[in-house]
């Protein structure tokens, strides 16, 4: 069935593209002496004398070759195999979209769920408006704005990092408001959180300004331990509730252990490190967290082990980010960067010396900086959809009878929402997630164009403008196939995570 759908879709696309393009149009104004000969050559090479519906089958024979181990998508018009071009382009596109998608999912779902819990609050109204606004933004417009304000102005700012007092006040109030909106509660609590958040931001930013942080950024052991404690608090709040003493021991103990591991782990982060070192760091921290959680209590051991695991996992990111940040000052003054770190276009700096590009941390920092703008743009655009989805889904679940039963049993509000509400609200998400990941490869055409990345979108663009039939079909079939597979996976996965579906069938 799947193959039939892909077959039909590719037949459709092939003919559409064949009939709407004319590879000979370039010859109309040509004055070459051997015009006739060139035209005949193009016609012969591209088999233009065969009508497209029949020509399709000669392409299909190669494409179906994977059945007998002779997969062939043909050559593009420069005689490079299409499969090779695809193999080069796919990693680029994945690199471009993966972090944005994960960010959008995590942020979107958490914000959406909070708006659902605080339905009809001011925070809900503001977030609803923002998500509608983001939903209506054309990505190319956002991209230009980001290039201007996030890249060019930020680079200008780095020349002389001075922040005016007014900016600090506005930014602090804004962050305080966001935090207070998240926290909710009574009016007094609201203003307390607002004031606390604002003062904290103001102090941090002022400190950053005076310690020359923007030119020599790093988190240091204090930053890492602070972030680890924050992570621990969130994880404890979600899994066991802050009132549980053993939960606090598991989470905070893990955070303290990560802090203690700060200096020993630096040994693993030397200049000749590689991806394996990162894996090693993660396995060390996670096993520490697991051990602490396991040792806390023989009763409810799974709960505390989970707290240790999640705290350790989340707190390892600050550790690694800290290492990247410490390369920043060297990176900033190097010839390739010349004091303007945030690029507006491209995938990597060409001018990096061999020594630099072989350094795992500098190369990573370079990639990360190139990813910043596209990631923000893509996140902003897709964030809105997840907010709306998560909000609607959780609201629907919270109206169910089993939620009322759970409340009537006297469970805490946290257990009701996290265990009974969120888990069920996340079920329909599997379908959307899988489909979104499949749509990613074809979905970033505009983004790739705006930011000058050479991925699938670029190939597609080349294919249409160059009347390149095989290239076009390669890109197209890959996208169609991924979508079909994603649908299948989503169906299977849904049966796994939601037993009700299986029973009904």
């Amino acid at each position, binding site marked *: *069935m799947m193959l*039939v*759908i*892909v077959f*039909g*879709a590719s037949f*459709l*696309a092939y003919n*559409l*593209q064949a009939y*709407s*393009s004319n590879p000979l149009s370039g010859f109309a104004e040509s004055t070459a002496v051997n015009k006739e000969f060139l035209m005949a050559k193009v016609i012969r090479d591209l088999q233009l004398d065969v009508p497209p519906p029949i020509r399709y089958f000669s392409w299909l024979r190669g494409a179906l070759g994977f059945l007998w181990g002779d997969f062939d998508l043909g050559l593009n018009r420069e005689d490079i195999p299409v499969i090779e071009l695809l193999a080069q382009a796919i990693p680029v596109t994945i690199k471009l979209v993966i972090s944005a998608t994960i960010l959008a999912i995590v942020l979107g779902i958490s914000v959406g769920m909070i708006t659902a819990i605080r339905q*009809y609050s001011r925070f809900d109204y503001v977030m609803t*408006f923002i998500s*509608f*606004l983001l*939903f*209506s*933004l*054309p*990505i*190319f*417009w956002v991209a*230009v704005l980001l290039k*201007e304000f996030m890249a060019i102005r930020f680079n200008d700012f780095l020349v002389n990092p001075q922040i005016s007092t007014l900016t600090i006040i506005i930014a602090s109030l804004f962050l305080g408001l966001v935090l207070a909106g998240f926290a909710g509660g009574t009016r007094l609590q609201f203003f307390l959180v607002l004031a606390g958040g604002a003062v904290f931001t103001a102090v941090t930013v002022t400190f950053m300004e005076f310690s020359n942080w923007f030119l020599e950024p790093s988190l240091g052991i204090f930053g890492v331990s602070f972030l680890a404690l924050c992570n621990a608090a969130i994880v404890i709040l979600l899994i066991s509730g802050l009132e549980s003493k053993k939960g606090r021991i598991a989470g905070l103990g893990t955070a303290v252990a990560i802090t203690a591991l700060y200096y020993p782990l630096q040994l693993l982060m030397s200049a000749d490190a590689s991806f394996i070192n990162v894996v090693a760091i993660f396995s060390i921290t996670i096993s520490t967290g697991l051990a602490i959680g396991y040792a806390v209590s023989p009763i409810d051991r799974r709960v505390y082990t989970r707290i240790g695991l999640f705290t350790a996992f989340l707190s390892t990111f600050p550790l690694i980010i800290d290492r990247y940040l410490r390369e920043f000052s060297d990176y900033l003054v190097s010839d390739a960067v010349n004091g303007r770190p945030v690029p507006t276009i491209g995938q990597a700096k060409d001018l990096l010396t061999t020594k630099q590009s072989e350094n795992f941390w500098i190369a990573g920092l370079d990639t990360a900086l190139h990813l910043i703008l596209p990631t923000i743009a893509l996140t902003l655009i897709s964030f809105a959809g997840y907010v709306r989805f998560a909000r609607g889904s959780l609201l629907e679940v919270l109206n169910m009878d089993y939620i009322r039963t759970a409340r009537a049993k006297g469970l805490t509000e946290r257990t009701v929402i996290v265990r009974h509400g969120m888990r069920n609200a996340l079920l329909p998400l599997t379908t959307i997630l899988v489909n979104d990941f499949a*749509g990613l490869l*074809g*979905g970033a*055409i*505009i983004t790739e*164009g705006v930011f000058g990345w050479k991925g699938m979108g670029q190939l*597609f*663009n080349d294919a*249409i*403008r160059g009347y390149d039939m095989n290239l076009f079909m390669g*890109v*197209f079939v890959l*996208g*169609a196939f991924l*979508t*079909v597979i994603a649908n299948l996976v989503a169906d299977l996965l849904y049966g796994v995570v939601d037993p009700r579906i299986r029973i009904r069938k």
Partner: protein
Amino acid sequence: MSEKKPSIQADLKENEVRNVNRETLGLSQRQIVVRRFVSHKAAMASLITLIGIVITVFTATGFRLGFGSFGVTIPGWWPFSITDIDPEGAMASVCNGGVTGCPTLDLKPSFIDGDGIQFGMHPFGTDIIGTDYFALVVRGAQQSLMVMVIVSFLGIIVGTILGAIAGFFGGIVDAVLMRITDMFLVTPVILIGAVIGFKFGNLGVVPLALMLGFFSWMGLARFVRTEFLTLREREFVDAARVAGASNRRVIFKHILPNAMGIIIVVGTLLMSSAILIETGLSYLGFGIKPPDVSLGLLISEYQGTFNISPWLFWWPGALIVAIALCVNFIGDGLRDAFDPRQERNISRKERSNARK
């Protein structure tokens, strides 16, 4: 609401239910929907804004009806068109240290720090050669709005018909139609749009919109089908059959009116995605081509001059966002209005009044 004072808690819920019922008592389905929609403030504000934009855009620079040499041109009230060049006017308005063609629109009242509210010759400024930018933006918005209307109209018609047939008849018809829908669905719209736009973009906006419309009905068809699958099992359909109604009559008179809600809601979503796709295609160069104008084309043309003359970039973008935002809010209001399960949003004030 406050004339009654229930003393015990149990009366509270009953009171609220009665309030809700009283509002819908004796009203037809359509009246309930209209009333709910009108009370949705964001949707109403968006509707008024959108109507304002549409009227301004289609009356300002004149609008051509018809194809080729057959057609009527309705003149507009704006003195400039997209082909008029007014270098003197552009030179007259200088800002930011020597940049010409700045917007003459001034919204600063005289008591703050301005010359009073005035529009001037070129409220949106002029482009580099002195073409009035208001005329260009208005022309672009005309194109985008036309694409939006045609695409959603076609999408709604095709999607409704196919979805209705598949859902109503079921069986082999359903299976075949749904596989065809899947075939269209696995092809990302932007890919198809690029192919179509590359071929039809230079023919003008109507052929482009027609072709895009033929490739954007799939989502709606699926929704309509699901709706029909549940509705055809309902008692009123059996009743109609017993009364001897034909298939056509059952579909159009009995089921379709009940499925209107989902059609209208998905239709509005289609509209907002259509305008984003059209501007995106034009931006990439696959949509409307110069010398004609589109909002996406204007943005791609002037993104490089952002530092020198930012208004050339702000206006078209702001208009795209405004139109899409309005359509999205209207869609949200319609969804609330059509959803029978939706509890009316009882504001905090009313609730505390009811509690008294």
